[in-house]
């Protein structure tokens, strides 16, 4: 808890910089408007105007907060203008992708730990797969899944987010499943434990802390994947689509509020996983 003070002061500093930047970035428009009317605004008038423009180059923090409040609390959840509605669309695809990616990552990790051929053939490609910019593939995946006949718009998004999130899970699980040392494995062998038993009673439990660490990275990556999946594809629902539509209609408030909603969503997901991690590890007697 020692870091609350410093974190708060850095946050306040960031907001202050943001306000400064608002004045600097929006004042051009203000002066322009004033000149057309033949006025020379005083500095305080300029500052006041830059904070409250309708289509600012950079909206002020309070404007973004106001927009967030309006589109979450004051709108009905089912309304198409509600960020809760769009957040839910994004969240659903994210969770689908997260489940898919985690399952794939764990399955590959088990195969890699038990099979040397798998390790040598798959592991290098798993690394290479992450150096390929997925966004290049994103439009492809969407075209492919629609021509195969998948109508559900969530599926391509989920595939993209699974692609981004399987890798941290794979790496973490390989490390975790290998973390029992030779002595512990030997002990189980002296008990006459079969391969399955030593997997379930030793390897799997010791890998849990590693799993949670990578799940937290994985879910953040899955959210990034979903939003990337929504950006270039002409999606009409979801936080990424809000960013896209905001860009097309020249509505910066829409972009900024969707961005912050995405940030809040990411924070919430990671926090929830952190809580689950704490409870599980405590139950298993592994909490530090």
């Amino acid at each position: 808890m020692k870091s609350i003070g410093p974190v708060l002061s850095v946050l306040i500093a960031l907001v202050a910089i943001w306000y400064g930047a608002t004045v600097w970035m929006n004042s051009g428009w203000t002066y322009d408007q004033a000149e057309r009317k033949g006025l020379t605004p005083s500095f305080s008038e300029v500052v006041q105007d830059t904070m409250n423009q309708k289509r600012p180059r950079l909206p002020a923090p309070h404007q973004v907060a106001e927009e967030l409040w309006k589109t979450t609390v004051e709108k009905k959840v089912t309304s198409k203008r509600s960020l809760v509605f769009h957040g839910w669309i994004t969240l659903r695809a994210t969770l689908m992708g997260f489940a898919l990616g985690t399952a794939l990552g764990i399955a590959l990790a088990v195969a890699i730990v038990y099979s040397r051929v798998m390790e040598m053939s798959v592991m290098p490609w798993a690394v290479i797969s992450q150096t390929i910019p997925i966004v290049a593939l994103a439009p492809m995946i969407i075209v492919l899944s629609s021509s195969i006949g998948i109508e559900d718009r969530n599926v391509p998004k989920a595939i993209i987010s699974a692609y981004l999130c399987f890798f941290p899970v794979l790496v973490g699980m390989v490390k975790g499943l290998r973390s029992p040392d030779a002595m512990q494995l030997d002990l189980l062998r002296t008990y006459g434990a079969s391969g399955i038993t030593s997997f379930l009673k030793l390897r799997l439990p010791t890998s849990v802390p590693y799993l949670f660490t990578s799940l937290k990275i994985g879910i953040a990556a899955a959210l990034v994947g979903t939003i990337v999946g929504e950006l270039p594809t002409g999606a009409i629902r979801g936080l990424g689509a809000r960013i896209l539509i905001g860009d097309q209609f020249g509505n910066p408030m829409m972009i900024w509020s969707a961005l912050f909603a995405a940030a809040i969503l990411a924070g919430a997901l990671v926090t929830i996983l952190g809580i689950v991690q704490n409870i599980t590890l405590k139950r298993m007697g592994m909490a530090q």
Partner: protein
Amino acid sequence: MIWVIGAILIWLALWALNIRLARRGHRFWVPVIFGFAILVLWEGTVRGLEISPIILPAPSQIAAKIATSTDVLWGDFVQTVLKGAMSGLVIGCAAAFAVSILVDRSPFLQRGLLPIGNFVAALPIVGTAPILVGWFGFDWQSKAAVVVVMVFFPMLVNTVQGLKESSAMQRDLMQTYAAGYTTTLLKLRLPAAMPFIFNGLKVATTLALIGAIVAEYFGSPTKGMGFRISTEVGRLNIDMVWAEIFVAAMVGSALYFAVVILEKAVTFWHPSQRG
């Protein structure tokens, strides 16, 4: 059907070969053969099931497309990678490095910035692309700006973390040598931070390409990999899209392995590098 069965047979044969090779520990050939086997399977399936090239072109068709359109691909490469991604990567990493050296002198700032940096590094920052394209215009400057924003925080967090890596004993030793702040930084703490800095760089190189390509979806001059992908998907020239994906994959892997080689050369002393 013959194509499909043939491809599956070749796949099985190559897999059997891989099992033998893996026993002898061929670190290089096993993954190469695995990749080749997947290409064979892909080619066989596309030909055997007569999948339309509008859905999924065969590797041979993609290769032919790459061979006939090298000049277009090169133009896109220069626009997106050299101008957009590279300049952004250099500026972003340099800025993050400079800020972390400054922050390093104040433990207060470190404690404040690290959690925030960690959080921001996990956010979908690609979403800022339309905003930055609006600010910096359609040409490569806006792409570089997106890349700067994307790579800044992962780099910052890793460098700040790395600079804390030297132990109290080592710093005391430097003090007994009467080494000042600069000497300690250059001779002890920066070298100790290198493994972390390279981790950040590995993340940053992949992010840089993603940022540069996504930013082009929001407006670009009539060249660039992201521009080409989004327009050719619309015109159903899927083989051209795959050609761009191939280039992107090559560039991404090349950048990553360049960082790995550099890391091996710089941090040869680190336990993780002494296989």
